[in-house]
């Protein structure tokens, strides 16, 4: 027993060597997606409020959730995707910091206030948002690109030249939109039609892969399902590429800044939430990661090539992006069946 106690003390000492008391003043710990945060934004925040910021990265919503759910992570700020905000509010992991009562809230684009994942913005504010549609080489295909028919019923010049995302929801949702059916669809007859559509289109698809930029710039394919930021970067290498806004609809997504319930530096976290709603700061975010933010007036501070980028600035006649809610479990199981048949 005595030895065990000594061992325990040694372990505690090891922890204590590098440990200090929790949460000193003047700190802020941010946990965000990798390669997503402008270092200039951090520096500006540090200088404005004399706060020392620590930034760490994660690579998926799920890893972030796993850590946060255990508690005492030491992080103040996280940047979950839309559906993950809802999950975290339901699990009581986020602090109700009420951004809607903050000074800079007036800058927020009203269309991003009453969203299904945080109605009225009691917990979170927009970080960046984007769309998932597809990119076509307009030198290869000269017709109207704003239709999902190019993927599911491709013209001769695009047959065998298509890359789809290797993502169940992105592919099935596109199929549902093409047939005019609703998302999160549990209707078995409609899903059977979708399965037939996908199986009929599959011989025309060359690959199903996430590496869309590489696929397009190496000229392996001429059409690829794509995210708008990736589409912009691919276009820089291959100027004839164009990002489509299909008339049948396309997916939108948003990452949001939120404060953890057990944040050690709650006041600084609130300062940060207010800070990023200032137009010049929101512009810093977009200039770095190349996605749109949700703050009005930020365009005055954005790089000119972003303001003219058709991937970022949607044409007026484009449909509203569809922010898909997470589906109920029985629908997910039906989707899995469709996906398995498609991938056989």
């Amino acid at each position, binding site marked *: 027993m005595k030895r065990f106690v000594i061992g325990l003390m040694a372990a505690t000492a090891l922890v204590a060597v590098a440990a200090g008391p929790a949460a000193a003043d003047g700190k802020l710990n941010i946990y965000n997606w990798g390669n997503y945060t402008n270092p200039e934004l951090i520096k500006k925040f540090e200088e404005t409020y004399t706060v020392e910021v620590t930034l760490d990265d994660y690579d998926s919503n799920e890893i972030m959730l796993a850590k946060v759910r255990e508690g005492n992570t030491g992080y103040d700020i996280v940047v979950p995707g839309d559906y993950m905000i809802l999950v975290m509010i339901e699990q009581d992991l986020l602090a109700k910091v009420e951004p809607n009562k903050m000074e800079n809230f007036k800058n927020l684009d009203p269309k991003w206030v009453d969203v299904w994942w945080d109605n009225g913005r009691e917990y979170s504010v927009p970080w960046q948002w984007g769309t998932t549609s597809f990119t076509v080489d307009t030198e290869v295909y000269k017709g109207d690109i704003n239709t999902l028919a190019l993927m599911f019923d491709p013209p001769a010049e695009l047959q065998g030249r298509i890359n789809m995302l290797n993502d169940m929801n992105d592919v099935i949702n596109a199929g549902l939109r093409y047939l005019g059916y609703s998302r999160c669809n549990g209707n078995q007859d409609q899903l059977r039609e979708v399965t037939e559509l996908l199986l009929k289109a599959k011989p025309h698809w060359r690959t199903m892969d996430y590496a869309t930029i590489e696929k397009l*710039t190496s000229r392996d394919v001429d059409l690829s399902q794509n995210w708008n930021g990736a589409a912009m970067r691919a276009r820089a290498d291959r100027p004839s590429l164009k990002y489509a806004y299909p008339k049948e609809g396309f997916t939108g997504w948003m990452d949001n800044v939120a404060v953890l319930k057990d944040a050690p530096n709650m006041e600084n976290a609130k300062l940060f939430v207010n800070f990023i709603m200032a137009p010049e700061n929101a512009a810093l975010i977009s200039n770095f990661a190349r996605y749109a933010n949700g703050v009005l007036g930020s365009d005055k501070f954005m790089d000119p090539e972003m303001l003219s980028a058709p991937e970022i600035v949607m044409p007026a006649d484009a449909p509203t992006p569809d922010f898909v809610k997470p589906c109920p479990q029985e629908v997910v199981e039906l989707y899995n069946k469709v996906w398995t048949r498609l991938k056989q």
Partner: protein
Amino acid sequence: MAEISSTSAVPAPEENVRSALNLRWQPGFNQIAWMCIFFLYAPIAVLIAFSFNDNRSVVVWTDFSFRWYEAAFDNRGIRNATLVSMQVAVVATFFSTIFATMAALATTRTEQYRGQVLAYAIINQPLMIPEIVTAVATLSFFSLIKQVTGLTGIGYLMLAHTVFCIPFAYMPIRARLEDMTLTLEQAATDLYAPPWQVFRRITLPLLVPGVVAGAMLAFVVSLDDVIITLLVAGPGETTLPVYILGQIRRGITPEINAVSTLLLGLSILFVTLFFLYGKRRK
């Protein structure tokens, strides 16, 4: 790892028994071996080649350049992550080697005792349990400790690394001890050397190659760990492999290739040192 240190026990094959029993002469051996080597090393060769590419793409070659290495050295995130990796690896290596040496002595330099097999099993546990299980368990356990004590900091990460490095350090040390006969120690005891002196003057000097080998293995294992680190690391404790993982979603630039190449180089350096050191001592 034990095999590496005890190859001297295997007799060299006689020329004239080169027969159908020798694996090297089975049909297809060379083809399969080369295929394995190709699939294991070709991706790494491609990764290294493109780290010297003067282009943002990781698929189209343009020109030779060191620009991604410069970019990597200028990157604050990469610099911090490297520093954290080194700190954690050094501390974890130091403590895990000490504990592993103590464990190896206690499991070899004694009479057989009840529960010895159980002791092996417990020491080697981190090798047997899937890493994700250890990671999740450690995450919850540390969270509980933080809740009770209020202590935070990099010490938790160091402790976690120390624990899973112990079996890696333990194996070469134990292999070395099993190769060493008790004769010298018994002679010293006969000459009235007290136990500490026997250890200090006889056992430890003979054991050094095993300890060095164990320490190097522990260092490399700590440096390469992703899963446990990903879940246990707190603010400002991102290690290099975890940093690399975090970059992947937003597209890989050759900067990551450059860092990976450096990390690979470091790992190779340590494994080579480990090998040469073992060879020299023989």
